[in-house]
């Protein structure tokens, strides 16, 4: 495999969710190596970590767009995120040493009363795979939890997630409280019951119906 092919294969394996030689998914790639092995070889071949990260981003973009169009579903996106994670494990030392720089910090959590973390997890994985540092606060987060993390991480971006219609009201309160204390912080909201209109009414800066849209919003500020 030459370097060009290695990069192309990383893109494909991220987009298809192929993690490693042993992984049984997807079926038509059983017995082939995945992102884990490909990244190792790529680094041994002195391909720059930046190029590998870009391949990873390109792969996630493909699956993210398919998901956004309703052609791929949660299991496929999760497997791609797993494949992406396998790349990131190899790239971690380069982030630590500063060879590869993260695009910024993104704080994410589900709002008070909402225990559903599927959407939040998908967004956080896709955003991380795009080169952002993700700080995941988990589920059922009080406004104060967001506020204290924002204080620790000046210049961060914030993502709020809600699956339930009944927790949209709490999302509204959290957006307004954050904006009152930190008018300059950009807040992105998402989740099944939300719409762009609802996001605007709450005073959020962005809305995305899917993880790829969240990445595009964040990248528009880089």
């Amino acid at each position: 495999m030459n370097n060009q092919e290695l990069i192309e294969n990383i893109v494909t394996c991220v987009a298809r969710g192929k993690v490693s030689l042993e992984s049984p998914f997807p079926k038509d790639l059983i017995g082939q190596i995945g992102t884990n092995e490909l990244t190792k070889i790529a680094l041994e071949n002195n391909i720059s970590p930046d190029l590998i990260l870009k391949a990873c981003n390109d792969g996630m973009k493909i699956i993210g767009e398919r998901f956004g169009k309703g052609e791929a579903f949660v299991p496929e996106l999760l497997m791609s995120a797993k494949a992406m994670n396998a790349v990131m494990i190899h790239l971690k030392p380069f982030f630590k040493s500063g060879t590869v720089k993260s695009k910024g910090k993104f704080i994410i959590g589900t709002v008070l009363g909402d225990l559903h973390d599927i959407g939040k997890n998908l967004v956080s994985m896709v955003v991380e795979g795009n080169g952002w540092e993700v700080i995941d606060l988990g589920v059922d987060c009080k406004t104060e939890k967001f506020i204290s993390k924002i204080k620790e991480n000046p210049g961060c971006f914030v993502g709020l997630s809600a699956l339930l219609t009944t927790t949209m009201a709490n999302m509204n309160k959290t957006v307004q409280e954050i904006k009152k204390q930190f008018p300059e912080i950009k807040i992105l909201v998402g989740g099944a019951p939300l719409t762009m209109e609802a996001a605007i009414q709450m005073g959020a800066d962005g809305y995305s119906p899917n993880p790829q849209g969240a990445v595009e919003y964040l990248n528009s500020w880089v």
Partner: protein
Amino acid sequence: MKSLLNEIKKGKVLVSDGAWGTFLMKRGLKAGECPEYWNISHKEDVFAIAKSYVDAGSDIILTNSFGGSPYKLKHFDLSENAFEINKQAALISREAAGENIYVLGSIGPTGAMLIMNEITESELYDGFFLQAKALMSGGVDAICIETMTDINEAKIAVKAAKDATNLEVACTFTFDKVANNEFKTIMGVSPKEVIDAILEVNADVIGTNCGIGFELMIDIVKELRKYNSTIPILVHANAGLPIFNNNIIEYPDTPEIMGNFVPKLVEAGANIIGGCCGTTPDHIKAIVRVIKN
């Protein structure tokens, strides 16, 4: 023993109940509080909700136990109390329903993903088994496994409910409209796959709930009917997609709008009709009026 299947075989269309979550909040449930714990701490409020659906004319009411799996209750440090909470849910609805109205014990998904190894198959099975057992001990007539999106979790839930009880079991899924106008759950499961899987584990009633309003439910029922002409179909529809306006969450589908869709839903093959998010006793009354005529 009462049998939903027998009622449906007689050609009856049964009316189920409406939303519980929004109703609990109206009665003072706060954000971050465990709704199912109200079965113990606010018994009268839960009873009032159940009773309001009985009074609206429902043939079937559910129980306040949607998030009552030990896994979900863990978040509130209440998994040890799972049996008591579910049993109490059943007792309250049973008391409101009396002998003639059916009580279906509600079981929702855990929210944990098998494919991400967040939970094992045996943990899922044990949790659903306990929940179904507790609901039966509180006197429910049947079990309703609701809002499923993952076919494996749904199959495990049906198996556990069947093993734990001798009751009829319904299993409903939440579909979205995706590419090429197809219907799929967020996990990518189609109506046909749902039918195949659910028949394999011998569920007695299949269905669809939540989703994006009454109108699309008609298409989903048609799709399910295409693959099976006999299995009873239950529909619990939202009152449309919520609109957020001046800090208030409103549902666009009024009782009249919902009532108007009922004949089409029956024609498509639905056997049990009720509401999900945003529906009220008034919505149920509107459905009852149409069915009784």
